């Protein structure tokens, strides 16, 4: 199967507050880390809030709330549900 360019794929950073998205993939450097916090591809993430001045993004996932720094959120790729 060839990779298809999909313009619906965006980084978590670009998701507006309140939106729910589906986690597609993450940068390899982060995979193990996110698994430790129970985040996997296919999970649905809701962006709950964003801290000011380039602060972290707070997402709701599987009933938990997880704060992700911008450098982390940037490497998480999602798609609108």
């Amino acid at each position, binding site marked *: 199967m060839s990779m298809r360019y999909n313009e619906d794929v965006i980084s978590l950073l670009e998701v507006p507050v309140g939106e729910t998205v589906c986690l597609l993939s993450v940068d390899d*450097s*982060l995979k*193990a*880390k*996110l*698994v*430790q*916090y*129970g985040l*996997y*591809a*296919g*999970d649905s993430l809701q962006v709950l*809030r964003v*801290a*000011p*001045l*380039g*602060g*972290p993004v*707070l997402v709701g996932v*599987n*009933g*938990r*709330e*997880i*704060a*992700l*720094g*911008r*450098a*982390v959120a940037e490497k998480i790729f999602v798609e609108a549900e």
Partner: protein
Amino acid sequence: MRIALIGQPNCGKSTLFNQVAGYKAETGNFSGTTVNFTESRVRVGGEVVELVDLPGAYTLDAGSPAEMEAVRYLRSQDVDVIINVADATHLSAALDLTLELLPLNKPVILSLNMMDEAARLGLHIDGEGLARELRIPVLPLIASKGRGVKGLFLKSLEAGRKKKVNDHLTLDAENRHVQARELAARFLSQGERISSFRDRLDDVLLHPIWGYTILLFVLYLFFQAVYGIGKLTEPPLIALFDVLTNKALTPFLPGSLIADIVLGIMQGIAAGVAIVFPYLLPFLLGLGVLEDIGYLPRIAFLMDALMHRIGLHGKAIVPFILGYGCNVPAVMSTRTLEEPRDRYLAAALATLVPCAARLAVVFGLVAFYLGPLLAFGLYLFNILIIALTGRILSNMLPEDTPGLIMEMPPYRVPTAKNVVNKAWFRIREFVVEAWPVLIAGSAVLAILNYFDFASVFNLLVRPVTWIMGLPSEVGIPLIFGILRKELSLVMLSQALGTSNFDTALTATQMTVYATFVMFYIPCLATLAVLKRELGTKAMIYIASLTVVVAMVAAMVVRGIGFIL
């Protein structure tokens, strides 16, 4: 029989352990407070069993030191039964770990904790269905209220005696997660959510303006309370120790070596007491309250952006806040950071934060003789220097930190018992690790002093004092300041032969001296903790770093003083 408790961070595992074992494990509302596991003998239904509390882990795929610790234990020791404590309000995430435990071929009991909170959220879990599907016992639990504890342990005994284990498939992480999600979807139903108290509170506490306002206010109250208690309790404690020291000295000839050694030992003991009771204890109690409420992760969330400017992330704010009270708990708290690089950097920078004892020096010298405004200026200067040092160090430590990934726990009401026991648990670390070093160091200094090493000391640090433009006599107070920071003020009057410092030192000299004291080598107690947390090499590096930073900062102040 040996029963192991395992669960994800914040699932209430330590609370359960404490219910049966009497307060031994440290519980907190901040991921990763239990790094070393605790073992305890408990009596269950007439039988004595070994109960082991393992560090919280989201998965057994080793990651943070806490998780690796849990894996090592489960694989190495002969564990008869595993109690998997799961947070019922996060069933899908919790089942990830359960599915990983099943193939270990040990009897597993799934204990669904926080059923009361789940009910409040309108969650209904079909426990029987889940038990049939997983082929293991599934029991409800409210550990904080002790409900379901007895039944859980009786069931565990029964499972341990039978040793009957069903075969389970080993799945990889992705498949485990998919299955966990499916199980949660099948056996969990969402009713009406009763309370959104947390959301409303977070709306305020994480607000771009109110959040920071409240944070400043909370920290202000916190420090006011701690310093207030410290100021009230320190003088009588020191007075008491003066009396005790005189009593201890009476059998010995004044001025003899023995008398000096006894004096040194008493001073070492007093130094420990003067740190622990007035400052460390109120600090740890206050921290325990903030931690149990769940406010610390909120502070980390708010401060993440700023902490990035010095090469760290939000979680590293805790050591900095603690550092203003005492560097010892500050260094201890770097344990909650996952990356070794972050732990190192945070510990190095936290030791540059002026603790309560160094505040005494800045106040006694700068604020008293030159005005509080200049003292306040020195504090701002300190923050600037720490930020600069952070930037330089993070450039020298090239490994990239992945950034902040942190669970935001729900708010909980702290219990007095829990807070007190946690403070005691941490104080014990100080008493065992740092206090003996203080006492021994104090005795050694007393011996050196007896053989009139004063001139040697002064000569030894003369290059440092000369560059800073200070009289050579300040060498002794600076060396004793390593023992306990207030000594660099107390002994200054002895060294200079007057307690009116303005007659012996110029305004610039006083400011330079206070600046140097604010940064140079952390006290012995902190050094001992640095050694334990990061190793001897790191301790030496950090101590040397602080001397360099202190020299540079003092030179800058001297330069400014010269121009003005």
